[in-house]
């Protein structure tokens, strides 16, 4: 089977936004689709391999490569062409079958630890990412190097999704320390406005007050806000991929994570203060709904600052080849 894709460097001229196109290297799209199918099959055959991160990362890379469309080439390079080898596909399939068999064989021993917030559970979670490795066999190393240079931004975006998009485990693991830090900061801030606040150090720290005691549990860690931010930032990246300055988008993503965590701290502080300033009933009744409203507001404030900054200037929206 032969798949080639001479990208048309003129396709991006005079266009700010491409709604995605199959002008993207078809063999790369096929590699990513095959990877997603193989990972899903692995997880179906060996449930202990289940993790949504590799699937989301592959889907992200696929969507962004598709969204980018025909890529302007790195200066001086020949068009990306590749003959898809059935032998490589066979190696890829064999590697996935072997991986599945090993995972099924180990699943009885690993099951008690898998999914737990322990070092062993974290190791098993990291081990699940091995399902991405057989994809290397699909292309020669030289081809991967060329693709890495050309599609570095899409690769980094996929890596960010793979490692940070589902922060529940990370926050759960760090909770004994992060929970204390969060409790101390909330205590310090709320004491500035409501002097009678006390602090009880515990795995789930409690802020005591005259009218309302607030216990900060894992669900208050801000992981919900991060989840919301991840989905919305993903939407921004997908729709505006060709308009974004990639380095700024990466910095903007981590700045957004920090903004949501800071927003979560202010949210809990406001609950403690308001709860001890005559609004204990309202805080008890509506704190969950108020949290979502708060996170939406934080996101919109963040976006109003970061979005114009992350966008390319008009002069930069012409293809890279012309600007070099």
């Amino acid at each position, binding site marked *: 089977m032969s798949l080639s894709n001479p990208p048309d460097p003129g396709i991006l001229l005079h266009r700010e936004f491409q709604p995605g196109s199959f002008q993207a290297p078809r063999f790369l799209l096929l590699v990513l689709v095959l990877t997603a199918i193989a990972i899903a099959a692995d997880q179906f055959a060996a449930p202990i391999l289940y993790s949504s991160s590799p699937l989301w990362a592959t889907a992200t890379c696929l969507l962004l490569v598709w969204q980018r469309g025909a890529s302007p080439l790195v200066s001086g390079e020949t068009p990306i062409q590749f003959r898809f080898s059935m032998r490589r596909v066979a190696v890829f399939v064999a590697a996935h079958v072997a991986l599945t068999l090993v995972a099924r064989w180990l699943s009885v021993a690993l099951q008690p630890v898998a999914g737990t917030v322990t070092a062993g559970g974290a190791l098993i979670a990291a081990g699940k990412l091995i399902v991405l490795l057989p994809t290397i066999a699909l292309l020669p190393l030289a081809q991967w190097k060329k693709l890495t240079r050309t599609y570095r931004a899409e690769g980094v975006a996929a890596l960010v999704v793979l490692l940070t998009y589902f922060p529940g485990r990370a926050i759960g693991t760090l909770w004994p320390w992060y929970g204390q830090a969060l409790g101390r900061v909330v205590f310090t801030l709320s004491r500035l406005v409501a002097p009678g606040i006390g602090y009880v150090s515990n795995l789930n720290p409690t802020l005591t007050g005259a009218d309302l005691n607030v216990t900060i549990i894992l669900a208050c860690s801000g992981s*919900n806000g991060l989840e919301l931010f991840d989905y919305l930032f993903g939407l921004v990246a997908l729709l505006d991929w060709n308009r974004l300055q990639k380095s700024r988008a990466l910095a903007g993503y981590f700045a957004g994570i920090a903004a949501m965590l800071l927003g979560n701290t202010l949210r809990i502080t406001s609950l403690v203060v308001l709860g001890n300033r005559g609004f204990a009933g309202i805080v008890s009744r509506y704190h969950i*709904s108020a949290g979502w409203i708060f996170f939406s507001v934080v996101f919109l404030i963040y*976006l109003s600052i970061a*979005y114009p900054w992350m966008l390319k200037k008009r002069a930069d929206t012409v293809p890279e080849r012309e600007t070099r």
Partner: protein
Amino acid sequence: MNTAFLLVSMLAFLNNGGGTGGNIYGDEIAGIGLGAAALVGAVGYLLMRRRNKQ
């Protein structure tokens, strides 16, 4: 277009609880909260995007 999108989304939210006999459980409330917040954020982003395109 945006108005129609908002109306359809609101109808979807008003039609909650159908699968649980009128009761809403904690995880459903969290799901509704995430959905509503995501909707607000997405609409805000689309408006901001339109303004930045002009």
